[in-house]
């Protein structure tokens, strides 16, 4: 027990000192947070503002300046009329390509990962740990290693230069991640639950549907966010295996910003960048807090 025989005056003085120190520390803490927040937000702010500014005005005043003009045309141009490498359709087609690639690849790889994780945590068999370790290696293989084999396989399947080819790549590559996430999460579900269900006569699918799945939402949210942002943002496979109108949005963005003529169309490029960044940003803004919470339950162990 702490000693409480301090007299009143001393108590007051100590309290005053403590209050001042407390205020100072708070000041430093919030000061640092504000500085870092500014560093993080300025690039975003610059892009957002420039997407509404007039191109001539940007050229005159530089990228980082308060807007003195406001127009929405850049967004329309970036979406549907701006020319990238000869075709003047803006980013819309590439945006749809990315959606057509990301949504199926995310759903399939997450579903497969959940099943794998369920089996590798609740239906272990001799050697299943070793197999799990082998699957895990897939997480670490750099994409460059698989470029040649994929080129060969996609060529033979007739899937080169198509969104379907990219779906195949992202599903196979993603299984390692999704399995890892789900398996590590399911391990923490008590085995007694499963045992009890088995005694009651529940089988493989019933246990998954009635016990595992209802408990899965934290890890499924993490996995879906991870896969969606990862696949949407992927560039290497997109630029290697597709071209022109088949390209996902990341590859198109690079093509667009590289196709600079004399005057750089910063307004259109800013809008294009935002169009490319928006889907994962929205997903993250709505699911971010579940993501961080779930990541620590599943991914990092």
């Amino acid at each position, binding site marked *: 027990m702490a000693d409480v025989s301090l007299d009143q005056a001393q108590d007051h003085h100590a309290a005053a000192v403590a209050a001042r120190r407390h205020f100072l520390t708070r000041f430093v*803490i919030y000061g640092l947070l504000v500085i870092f*927040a500014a560093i*993080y937000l300025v690039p975003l702010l*610059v*892009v957002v503002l420039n997407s509404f500014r007039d191109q001539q005005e940007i050229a005159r005043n*530089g*990228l*980082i*300046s308060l807007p003195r003009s406001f127009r929405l045309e850049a967004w329309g141009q970036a979406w549907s009329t701006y020319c990238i490498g000869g075709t003047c359709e803006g980013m819309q087609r590439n945006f749809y390509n990315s959606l057509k690639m990301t949504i199926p690849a995310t759903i399939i790889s997450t579903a497969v990962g959940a099943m*794998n994780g369920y*089996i*590798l945590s*609740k239906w*272990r*068999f001799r050697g299943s740990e070793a*197999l799990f370790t*082998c*699957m895990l290696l*897939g997480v*670490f293989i*750099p*994409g*460059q*290693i*698989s*470029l*040649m*084999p*994929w080129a*060969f396989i996609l060529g033979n399947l007739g899937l080169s230069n198509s969104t379907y080819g990219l779906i195949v790549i992202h599903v*196979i590559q993603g*299984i*390692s991640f999704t399995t890892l996430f789900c398996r590590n999460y399911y391990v923490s579900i008590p*085995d007694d639950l499963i045992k009890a269900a088995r005694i009651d006569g529940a*089988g*493989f*699918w019933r246990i998954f549907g009635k016990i595992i799945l209802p408990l899965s939402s934290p890890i499924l949210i993490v996995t879906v966010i991870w896969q969606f*942002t990862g696949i*949407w*943002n992927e*560039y*290497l496979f997109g630029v*290697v295996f597709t071209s022109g109108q088949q390209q996902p949005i*990341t590859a198109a*963005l*690079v093509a667009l*910003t*590289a196709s600079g003529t004399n005057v*750089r169309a910063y307004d259109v490029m800013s809008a294009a*960048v935002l169009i*490319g*960044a928006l889907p*994962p*940003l929205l997903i*993250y803004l709505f699911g*971010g807090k579940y993501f*961080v919470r779930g*990541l*620590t339950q599943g991914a*990092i162990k």
Partner: protein
Amino acid sequence: MSNHDLILSTPAPARPWRERLGSAMPLLVLGPSLVASFVYVFVFTGWTLYISLSNSSLLPTYGFVGLDNYASLWANRRWNIAYTNLFLFSGFYIVGSMAVGLLLAILIDQRVRGEAVWRTIFLYPLAVSFIVTGTVWSWLYNPTDGIQAMVRGLGWTNFSFALASDRHYAIYAVIITGVWQASGFAMALFLAGLRSVDSDLVKAAQIDGASTFRIYRKVLLPTIAPIFLAVAVIQIQFAIKTFDLVAALTKGGPGISTTFPAIYVYDLMFQRGQIGEGAAAAIMMLAALAVVLVPYSFWVVWRRRKEAGHG
């Protein structure tokens, strides 16, 4: 009896087909993934390894030439710059993002108001692609339109900030951008780690009269040491695979000053039609990863065994 052998514990006298199918179900479901992963991990790597030992140029061919591709790779100045850049980048990127991430995590851990808002601000770059980040930062680094132009516009007409267009410093432009993108992720993991520390430990230290600083140094940070390692390993993977960021930010330039192994592989395979040497470069990337990951995985296994031994 451990909980490992749920399957083995079912009695096995003449079972009806349904039950047998039921017990085979896990393997049936897992099978395709196992095959795919096996092909992806071993066959693909073996294939690329073989191509790296062959005389492939425009198309894969299988004439065995031993280590010739590796010899010509390491004789190339551009490759040596790429590999040096990789080490420079990895070091600064990991230390930088972890330092910033830890600082931010500790700041947020001080029961600040609006915690969710701060966290969102620091973490949002994680959701954005390296392509987007690289593109935007290349504008900021651009001397005639970006930061330099802005500061000059404010009156300091001699101000110079042309990091990305200077051969000697462009790599630091890549590093700064990488740290900007990645430190929020480090923050999130550190913060989660700090929150998971048993609060009794902290209370005990407080009762002993330890200062906040001391509590962090002596109690909290040592307890989350495994997270440091995990973050470092995750970051180093990003570093070794760095391709998008450089492709969007500097395109490997000015000149060849910010070439990275990943850029080099892409160039050889798809721009110059030197598949054999490109494969050799890809294998060298894998080697760099293995140097980090093999000891790490042994450590993880060792730690798990130790914990299991105690439990």
